[in-house]
């Protein structure tokens, strides 16, 4: 399955990546699975997306939880807790 992945703020900066099209293996079903799939790249990916990091995620531009299923051509985003206002 192909999806669009986006990164913002400190996550974007640490990964040095704003967006990426991912071709995912069939074992990746949820937003949380996408996070784990990216973590397997190791290095800064494991550091930024690893357990215990305050990380928020969005599915098709709505804040969501790791158990949300992904769909073909969806947009998944990872970013830190928000600090606007």
């Amino acid at each position, binding site marked *: 399955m192909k999806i669009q992945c*986006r990164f*913002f*703020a*400190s996550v974007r*900066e640490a990964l040095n990546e704003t967006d990426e099209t991912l071709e995912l293996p069939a074992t990746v079903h949820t937003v949380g699975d996408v996070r784990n799939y990216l973590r397997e790249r190791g290095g800064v990916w494991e550091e930024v997306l690893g357990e215990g990091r*305050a990380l*928020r995620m*969005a599915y098709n*531009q*709505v*804040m969501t939880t790791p158990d949300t299923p992904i769909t073909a051509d969806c947009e998944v*985003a990872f*970013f*830190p*807790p*928000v*600090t*606007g*206002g």
Partner: protein
Amino acid sequence: MPIRIQTADFDVSAELAQLRMENPKVGAIVSFVGTVRDLNDGHSISQMELEHYPGMTEKALETIITQAQTRWDIADALVIHRVGPLLPLDQIVLVAVTSAHRGEAFKACEYIIDYLKTEAPLWKKEQTPEGAHWVDARDSDDTALTKWQL
């Protein structure tokens, strides 16, 4: 419900006049303006950079305003949030609510800014003498939400 994300500054008087224009049912306007401080958590701030998630920010604000509209009898609501580089004293955000009576407008305005601070995908990066750093989310912002869990 006008929602705008922009780099340009805004004129509060003009925005409020526009929001209540030609609506004689409006008897109250409550507005909140957030501005850039020159000090945060002991660090002096020379500049701030606001980043957002285009598309999602507007959607999130629309949802927050819709929730406010279902809870309180308000006429209209406006949110303008600036992004890009900002300096101390600059305006960051305007939330304005119109209603027949002040009680509803006060509550809805506070609700919208409280939820904006935890739900809208916007991030601040501060420039200090020690270098630039991303602002951490505050626990007090989450605590502010608890008063709305009626």
